[in-house]
C-alpha cells in the first residue's frame, strides 16, 4: 500500500488520552485521523477493573476502550490501528508529514503525540527466547503454571507487590530481585536488593538465572522456572525527542511543551506526565481545545 491522507490534525496513539483528544478535536469541527501501532486502548485494555472513573461504578479497561473508540468513530475520526509511525517531520511550510510502516504518508497542520508509556524490558538478550517458556509479564495470568516451582519476581514496577503476594501462595521458593531497590518485605520471600540478572539459562525452558550485585563483586546462580518481569514503564518518546532536542538548542527551554504547541505539536496523556486515568482522559480533552484554538488561529491568519 502506498497512499497519502490529509487531515487538519493527526493524533498519534489511541490510548485514552489520544482517543479523547481525537473525539473532541473532531467534535469541534476539525478533520482528524488517529493512528496507533497496535490496537486501540493502549495499556487501558489490560486493566481488569476500573473503579474510580467518574460516573461509572466499575468497568473493565477492555470495555471502556471499546466505548472510547466508538465515541471517536461516531465523531467521524478516521481510526488507523496496527500501523506504526516510522517518521514524523515538519516541512518548510510548517506542515507535519507522518510516514507509516505500511508506506502511507499522512499530512497535517498539527499533531498530537499521545504515545503514552511502554513496559520496560529486562535488557537481557535471552528474554524473548524464554518468553512463554518461563518468562512472563503477569503473575495473575501465568502464576498457576508454576505451582510449587521456584520463581523470581524481577523489578519493583507497578504491580510487583501484588505479584509477590499472589506467587507466594502458589510457588516456592519465591525470590524478589530488584536493581532499583524497594524489595518485598515478606518473610517468605528471598530478596536481592540492588542486584540485577545477567543471564537466563535453560534447555528450551527457563531453569536458572545468573545475577550480580550492584558493585559487581558478588555473583550468584539460582534455580528458577518462572521469571515475572515488573520493571515498570517508560515514556514512548522517540518521536518527541528530536523536537525537544531542537527546542533546547533554540529559545525553548523552560516550557518546551508549550513552545512546541505554538508550532503545532501537542503532547498529551502519560507522555505529558499524567498519572491517573481520569487525569489522562481530561488532559486529552484539554489538548483538543488547544488544538482547536491553534487551527482556528491558523485559518484566521490565512484569511487576513
Amino acid at each position: 500500500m502506498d497512499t497519502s491522507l490529509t487531515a487538519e490534525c493527526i493524533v498519534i496513539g489511541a490510548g485514552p488520552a489520544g482517543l479523547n483528544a481525537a473525539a473532541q478535536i473532531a467534535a469541534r469541527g476539525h478533520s482528524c485521523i488517529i493512528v496507533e501501532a497496535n490496537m486501540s486502548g493502549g495499556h487501558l485494555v489490560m486493566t481488569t477493573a476500573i473503579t474510580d472513573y467518574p460516573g461509572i461504578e466499575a468497568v473493565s479497561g477492555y470495555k471502556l476502550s471499546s466505548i472510547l473508540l466508538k465515541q471517536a468513530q461516531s465523531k467521524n475520526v478516521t481510526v488507523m490501528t496496527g500501523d506504526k509511525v516510522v517518521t514524523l517531520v515538519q516541512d518548510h511550510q510548517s506542515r507535519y508529514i507522518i510516514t507509516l510502516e505500511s508506506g502511507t504518508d499522512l499530512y497535517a497542520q498539527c499533531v498530537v503525540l499521545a504515545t503514552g508509556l511502554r513496559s520496560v524490558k529486562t535488557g537481557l538478550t535471552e528474554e524473548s527466547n524464554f518468553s512463554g517458556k518461563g518468562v512472563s509479564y503477569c503473575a495473575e495470568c501465568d502464576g498457576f503454571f508454576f505451582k510449587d516451582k521456584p520463581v523470581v519476581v524481577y523489578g519493583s514496577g507497578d504491580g510487583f507487590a501484588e505479584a509477590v503476594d499472589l506467587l507466594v501462595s502458589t510457588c516456592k521458593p519465591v525470590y524478589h530481585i530488584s536493581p532499583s531497590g524497594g524489595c518485598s518485605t515478606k518473610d517468605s520471600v528471598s530478596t536481592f536488593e540492588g542486584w540485577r540478572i545477567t543471564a537466563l539459562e535453560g534447555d528450551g525452558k527457563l531453569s536458572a538465572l545468573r545475577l550480580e550485585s550492584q558493585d559487581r563483586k558478588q555473583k550468584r546462580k539460582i534455580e528458577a522456572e518462572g521469571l515475572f518481569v515488573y520493571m515498570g514503564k517508560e515514556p514512548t518518546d522517540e518521536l518527541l525527542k528530536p523536537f525537544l532536542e531542537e527546542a533546547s538548542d533554540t529559545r525553548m527551554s523552560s516550557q518546551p511543551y508549550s513552545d512546541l504547541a505554538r508550532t503545532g505539536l501537542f503532547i498529551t496523556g502519560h507522555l505529558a506526565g499524567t498519572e491517573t486515568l481520569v487525569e489522562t482522559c481530561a488532559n486529552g480533552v484539554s489538548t483538543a481545545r488547544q488544538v482547536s484554538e491553534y487551527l482556528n488561529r491558523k485559518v484566521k491568519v490565512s484569511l487576513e
Partner: protein
Amino acid sequence: MLDTNLKHLETKEEADALVSETENVMICCGRMGPMCLPVYAAMEELEKEYPHVELTDMDFDIPAASLIRNLPECASFMNLPFTVYFKNGIVADVTSGIQSKGQVSKILDNEFSVRTY
C-alpha cells in the same frame, strides 16, 4: 463465559464442529487477564478485515478448553492466552501469551491469505 464481543465457544461439541467444518478458524483460549485482553481486543478489530476467518474465544477454565489445552503444540506453553489457528481442522500455527495486532494479522495473512480490504 468471557466478557468480550467475540463469538464464544462454550461446549466441546460446538468447538469440534467449528474446527472440523470450517476452513479457517482462530481460537484464543484465555481468561479476562491483562495478557489475554489485548489479544481479544486485536481480534475484535481484525474481525471485519478477515470475514473468511472465524475469530473466536474460549474460557480457559471450562471443560471444552481441553480441545486447546491438550494439543501437543501447546504442551510446553506457560503463558495465557493459548491461541490456535486451524486450517481445515489441522493446527496451522500456535502462540502463547500477549500478541500485538500486527503479530496476529501476520499469522492470519500467512495461514489464511491476506486480508480482504
